């Protein structure tokens, strides 16, 4: 029972804390670019504002357009309930393993792309087309990186994986370095950050995620934006807890959970800094250079897998 209660609390924390990560990266980026920047809690204000606004729907929008935000939001939230944030061994982590997690991302993306196609404007179609192209190249790299981890710990259950890695004496796996690099590259591509897509842009011909949600307004837009924030947070938590697993609570005691909260906050704090610095120092890439970027991710994860097979078995 404690487990289920903790799982609910963790999911709520996950949903509520996600905008803070986005706000933190945005604030930091502004600072690095010599601008003052909105406070890190600005995304909460934005969401609150959007929820109060009146919905303006395009005349050509079908029911898919109105259902999609709820599906995208709830599938992403469900994905969040599966990933260990503060502590491992929660009952929700048995519902879905890491492969199902990739499936959740794909399901949310499917509806996002459909919503982009729905109104029948060129922008929506363009965004959907690009999103599906990028993701179809990112998914194999992500899966191969995940496989490298899963083969090391002989499990695809995220809870088991993290618990195994956190309790084991410190050991250097060369394959993990490659897998972590590959997963970081995929995370940047999948969450639509610079150099793949610019979350701050409204330059019409370069956008991907923004193009798909261009016709959304009010609460629908808020749900879509929130889901995107949760996705960024989720990839951050995945990278942090899989590759730097120390600090995650291994039991359900308040002390362990407190440490877990502290550890994940510190990890995400530093991941945010890394993301902001890379985003500031890089320019957005041409769309047709993205395949090269993603094939680099794929090759890195392939090297990771091979080094696992050759060196670590």
């Amino acid at each position, binding site marked *: 029972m404690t487990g289920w209660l903790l799982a609910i609390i963790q999911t709520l924390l996950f949903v509520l804390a996600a905008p803070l990560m986005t706000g933190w990266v945005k604030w930091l980026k502004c600072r690095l670019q010599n601008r003052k920047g909105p406070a890190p809690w600005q995304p909460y204000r934005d969401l609150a504002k959007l929820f109060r606004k009146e919905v303006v729907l395009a005349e050509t929008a079908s029911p898919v357009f109105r259902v999609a935000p709820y599906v995208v939001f709830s599938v992403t939230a*469900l994905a969040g309930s599966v990933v260990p944030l503060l502590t491992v061994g929660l009952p929700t982590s048995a519902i879905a393993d890491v492969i199902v997690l990739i499936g959740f991302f794909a399901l949310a993306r499917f509806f996002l792309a459909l919503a982009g196609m729905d109104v029948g404007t060129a922008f929506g*179609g363009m965004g959907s087309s690009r999103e599906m192209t990028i993701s179809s190249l990112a998914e194999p790299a992500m899966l191969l990186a995940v496989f490298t981890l899963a083969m090391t710990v002989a499990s695809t259950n995220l809870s088991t994986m993290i618990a195994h890695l956190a309790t084991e004496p410190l050991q250097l796996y060369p394959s993990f370095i490659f897998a972590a690099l590959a997963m970081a590259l995929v995370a940047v591509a999948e969450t639509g950050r610079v150099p793949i897509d610019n979350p701050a842009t409204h330059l019409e011909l370069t956008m991907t995620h923004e193009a798909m949600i261009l016709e959304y307004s009010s609460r629908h837009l808020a749900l879509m934006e929130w889901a995107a924030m949760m996705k960024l947070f989720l990839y951050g938590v995945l990278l942090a807890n899989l590759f730097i697993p120390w600090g995650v609570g291994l039991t359900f005691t308040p002390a362990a959970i407190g440490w877990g909260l502290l550890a994940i906050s510190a990890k995400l704090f530093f991941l945010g800094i890394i993301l902001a610095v890379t985003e500031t120092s890089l320019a957005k890439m041409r769309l047709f250079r993205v395949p090269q970027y993603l094939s680099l991710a794929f090759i890195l994860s392939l090297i990771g897998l091979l080094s696992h*097979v050759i060196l670590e078995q």
Partner: protein
Amino acid sequence: MGGLIRRMPVTAVCFLVGCISISALPPFNGFVSEWLTFQAALQGTALQGGVLSSLIPLAAAVLALTGALAAACFVKVYGVAFLGQPRTRHARKARIPQPGILAPQIILASLCLVLGIVPTWMVGLLDRIARQLLGHGLPEATAHGWLWLTPVAPQQASYGAPLVLLGIGLACLLAYLFLHPRKQTPIRTSAAWDCGFGPLSPRMQYTSTAFSMPLRRIFRPVWSVSEGMEDTGTGRAYRLKIGDWAWLKIYLPLGALLLAAARRVTLIQGGNIRAYLAYSFFTLLFLLWVIV
């Protein structure tokens, strides 16, 4: 095509279910199969030999690529056929089909969902065949009740499809209840954003050729793609031709070789009856000489 979801709502829902299933997305049946295939690929390390145990996960990555490309393809199909604005007169005048045509769609779509939600039932049925053929089944897979699919052991991997559906439904409901404003403000409809350049026409929508253009460009080294504009006399038309690599590089050269050989042989076929009689005469002589 285009905009059929408004004219044919039931077909649209069934088609959507089919699209999600074939793109191997949870919680439908295609995903269960893909998930089990991935789990089997992860057991590849148990095999002897480094080549095999690294090739099997690689094959799984190719499966992931296929799945993701299938998703792109079916977003395109659904988006072009059912969403957006009707492009043709026929699409604008589409009618709801007869119940006899709707019923099979509904049955197949619900089967997709049922097989995705209770895969344990189907795995249990298939297990009998595996046991007959191999003498070895998967008793672990369905050992933890109908909620859980556990191919090897619960701590290794588990998938609770009914709980996934329940979770998505619950989260949708909560999002709707909590985030929907108490006072229902009426939803205002207005024209879509046209960049200030006047009304949008259905021809401005993304077509299926436009949708798959980035993928075509990426996979150009693999497929022979030729595209360009062509004068048709009355106007200009876009021309796209995608050649199959196997057809162009294997079958066509082989066929050309065969045809060239056949052409050489036709030299002796003059069509003159006297020449043919001479052939048979000399063949007979030759055979007599060989045998006698």
